[in-house]
C-alpha cells in the first residue's frame, strides 16, 4: 500500500515536471485538471495534484541547483521582486501548488458532472 502511494507520488510529480519542461508552466493546470477528472475521489486527486505539482517543480529546481548557482539566482532575482531568496523559492513552489489545487478541484467537479451520481454509489467507491 505504502509502495503504491510512493510510486503514485513519484509518477505524478514527474508528470508535472516533464510537462512543465516540455510545454511550459501552464501545463500544471492542464495536468492537474486531468488528474481531477481521471482519478476518482478515493484516490485523493486534489491532494496528490497539489503536492505533486510542488514536488515536480522542486525536482526541476534541484536539477537547476545541480547545474548552476541557484542560490545566486534566488538572491539576485529575489532582489528584483522584493523578496528574500528563501521566500522566492517558497513562492515558486506555492505557485504550481495553487494552480494544481484549483485546477484539480475543477477537474473533480467536472468528473462529478460527467459521471453523475453513478460514482457516488458505494459500489463504485
Amino acid at each position, binding site marked *: 500500500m505504502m509502495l503504491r502511494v510512493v510510486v503514485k507520488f513519484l509518477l505524478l510529480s514527474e508528470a508535472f515536471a516533464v510537462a512543465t519542461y516540455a510545454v511550459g508552466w501552464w501545463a500544471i493546470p492542464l495536468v492537474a485538471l486531468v488528474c481531477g477528472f481521471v482519478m476518482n475521489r478515493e484516490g485523493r486527486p486534489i491532494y496528490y495534484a497539489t503536492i505533486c505539482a510542488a514536488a515536480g517543480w522542486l525536482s*526541476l529546481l534541484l536539477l537547476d541547483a545541480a547545474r548552476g548557482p541557484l542560490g545566486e539566482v534566488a538572491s539576485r532575482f529575489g*532582489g528584483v521582486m522584493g523578496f528574500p531568496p528563501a521566500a522566492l523559492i517558497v513562492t515558486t513552489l506555492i505557485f504550481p501548488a495553487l494552480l494544481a489545487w484549483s485546477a484539480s478541484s475543477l477537474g473533480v467537479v467536472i468528473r462529478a458532472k460527467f459521471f453523475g451520481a453513478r460514482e457516488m454509489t458505494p459500489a463504485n467507491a
Partner: protein
Amino acid sequence: MRVGIASIVLAVLLFTGFRSVGTLPPLGKLLDPANGVWATARAADLPPIESGSIPGLHQTVQVLFDDRGVPHIFAQNEDDAYRALGYVSARDRLFQMELSTLAAAGRLTEWLGPKALEADRATRTLGLPWGVERKFAAYDRKSLGYRAMTAYSDGVNAWISSMKRQDLPIEFRLLGVAPFKWEPVNSIHFFSKMALTLGFNDASYARLAAQARVGRAAADALFPINSPIQEPIQPNGLFAPRYDLAAIPAPGAPDSRATVAIAAQKSLIAALGIGKPNADGDAIGSNNWAVAPKRTASGHALLAGDPHLDLTLPSIWYEMHIVIPGKLDVAGVGFPGVPGVVIGFNRNVAWTFTNTGSDVNDYYMEDVDDASRPSRYRVDGKWLALEKRIESYHGPAGAVLHTDTLYYTHRGPMTKLNDKWVSMRWTAYEPSSETDNFLKAGYARNANEWLDAMSTFVAPTQNGLVADGAGNIAIRSAGHYPVRPGDGRGDVIRDGSLSSSDWVGFLPVSKYPFAMNPPQGFLASANQQPVDPKVNPSFMGSHWYSPWRAIRINQLLRGDSAVTADAMRKFQTDPGSVRADAFVPRFLAAAAREDSAGRADATLREAAKLLSEWDRQYTKTNRRAVLFDKAMTELASRTWDELAPPAGSHDDPTATEYPESQILLELMETPNSPWWDDHRTRNVTEDRDAILSESLSAALVAVKKRRGDPAGDGWLWSNAQPANIYHLARIKSFSALGIPIVGGPGTLSPSDTSGKQGPSWRMVVELGPQVKAWATYPGGQSGNPASPRYTDRLKLWANGELAPVLFPRTPNELPPNRVISNLTLHPQ
C-alpha cells in the same frame, strides 16, 4: 463554495501567470524552473567542453576561455575570427549589446513602451541614427571593418538562433521581450553613442550663461580658451607646469544679447535631451602614460591605460584575445557589439586612449521658408531643399506610438526654437570608419604603423598613446578638428544663411597635437589642454578640465627614473591630490590670518585643526578628505555667486555651471578681487580670506550634521564616496553599490559623489621580447548576474590590483589548468 474559490484562484493565477501586473512581469514564465528565471542558473558557468556552428564559417575555430573568462580565439582567417567573437560576445553580453543598440538608435520604446518615448525622440532629434545611416551607407563594402561587422553579425545571430532555454538572459525574461536579429550597422550605433558621451562638447553653454550674468570680459576669463595652468599633452619643453595666472576682470554688467542666446541654447539642449553639459571636471577623467626604455627598470617601454567612463554591470568592456597565425595576435578590450580590440596590445605594440574633449560641434541659425512646416532653407540667397524624415516610434507589440517629422540641412539636424530653426553640425555625423581604425591598429608592427592606422579616425577625438617593442613612445590627439571661418572659435551660434559660416575643412593630421620619443622620456595625458597655446594657438576647444591629474602623473614620472610595471599600477590609484596640495594650505593660511586678526570663532578653529590633520591623500581610511571636498564645494558657490540666478528667477540655481577649480586658483592671486565678495551678504564686503574661512566653517557644520563626529566612521572616505556600479537597467540587486575605493576629485582615480563614474579598464603593458600585460575592469566577463564571472573582478579592481593577462601564441601555450572551457565552432 469550494468550486467558486478554486475557480477564482485559478483565474487569478492564470492571469498573473500570463500577464504582467504593474511592474511585475508575467509570473508563470518567470517562476517556471525549467524555462524561466531559475533556468539561468544552468547557463551561469561555462561548460568545460562544447561545440557550436556558425553559418558561413570557413574553417573550424577553437575558443579557449581562461579562468578570467577571457576568450582566446584561434582562427585561420579574419572573417572566421570575428564570427567567433560575435558568437561568444553574444553568449556573454547579449542583453547589453541589444540594449545599447536600441538606446543609440532611438528604439527603446520597442522594449519599454511609451515610458521610453522621450528618450528615443531626443536621440533621433539629435540625429544619431540619421548619422549612423549615412556612415553605414558610405562604408566601403570591401573594407576590413565592413567585413568584420558582417562576420560579427553572423556570429551573434548564430548564437541567438542556437540558444537553449537557459541561455536567454534574465533581463529579457523580466522585460518579457525576445532578442532581435543583429545587423552589422549596430556596431556603428555603438560608436555613435560613444561620440555623444565623449565628443559632444558644449563649452559654449557655460561661457554664454556666465556672459549673460557678468558680461563678456569676465565670462571669457572664467571659461577661457586656454588653461591658466599648462601641463600639456604635447610636451612643451618645460619640466614643470607653467602657471599663467592672470587677474580675472571684475563682474561686469549682464549682457542682454547673451541672455537671449543662452535662453535659445537652453531650449536647444532641452529639445535635444542632452541634459546639463560638462560635469565637474575634477571628478571625472581618463589617464594614460607611457615611459621610454631609458626611464624603466627593465629597459623596455611601459604603457598604462586607464580610461574612465560610466561604471556599469556588466562592464562597458569585453576582454578578448584573437589569434590568426602569421597575421594577427591581439589582446585587450573592445565594446560588446563591436568587432575587435579597442584598447590593448599585440606582440609589438600597446595602445590606449583618453578623451581629448575638443569642440567639434557648432550651431547655425537657419533661414527657412516656413517656420511651422519648412521645406527649404536659404544659403547665400538661394533656396535649398531640406531633407525630411518621418520618424516612427514603435511599441513592444509593433504599434506606432508616435511619429515625428525631422528636417536636415547640409549641416545636420534642425531643431525648432520658438519660431526659429537651428541646425547643428557635428563631426559625429561625418562619414567615418572607426571599426577599421581599431582593427587595423591591431596589426601594427611598430608605433608608426599604429599612428598610420589611427590617422583617419574621425570622432570622438582621442589622445591615442602607443608604445612599441623597439622602445618608441608616441601620442597623437586624433580625430577631426573643424576649421572654422573668422576667428576660428566654435563657441558661438553662427548665421546659417551664409555659406561663409560653414566649416572650411579639418585640421590636417600633421597639425594634430603630437609627440614621439620626447627628451623627457615619457608621455602622459589626462584630458588636459593638449597643446600649449604658446606652441600652437589654434582653437581646439575651451573650458578644459583642470590639469591636476596631468600634473600629478608628470610629478610621479619625473620623480622615478627606473619605473617598473608595478609602479605604473600603483600610480593608477595614487591617492595624492595636486588640487588638495594647492588649496589646503590656502584654507589653513586664511583661517590663521582670520584667527590672528581676532575674527575666528571656535568652528573655524576646529575646522582648520581638522583639515591640518589631513595628509592630502584620498585613501579609503582617511577621515578628512570629506571636509576638504565640502569646503571646495562651499568655496565655489560662495565665490561664483554672481553666476547664480538672481533671487526671484525661475532658473534652477543648482544648474549653475561654475568655472573649473584652476580658475579658483587663479583668483587666489587677487585677495581683494570683487569676485570674493558674496553679494548675498549685505553691508559686508568679503575678501579672499573671509570667503575661504567661511567656506571651511560651513563645511565643518555641514559634514558634522550629515556624518556625525569627526572621529567616527561617517567621516571615512570609504563611506563618504564609494563606487556605485549600477546594472545597465538600474536593477539594484544586479548592481554592486557602496564599494570602497581610493581616490577623489583631482586624483589619478577621480570620483564624484554619485560614484557612478570611474576607471573602466586599467592596463599596464611591458613591451619586452615577451610582451607582459596586467589588467582588470570592474565587473566580470559574463552578463549573467548569477554567474561567478559577473563580478569576479570587482575586488581586484577596488583594491587597485591588476591580474596578469594570458597571451598564448597557440592553444597549447595556454596552461591547461587555466582553461575553464573549450569551445569548438564548426562551419554549418
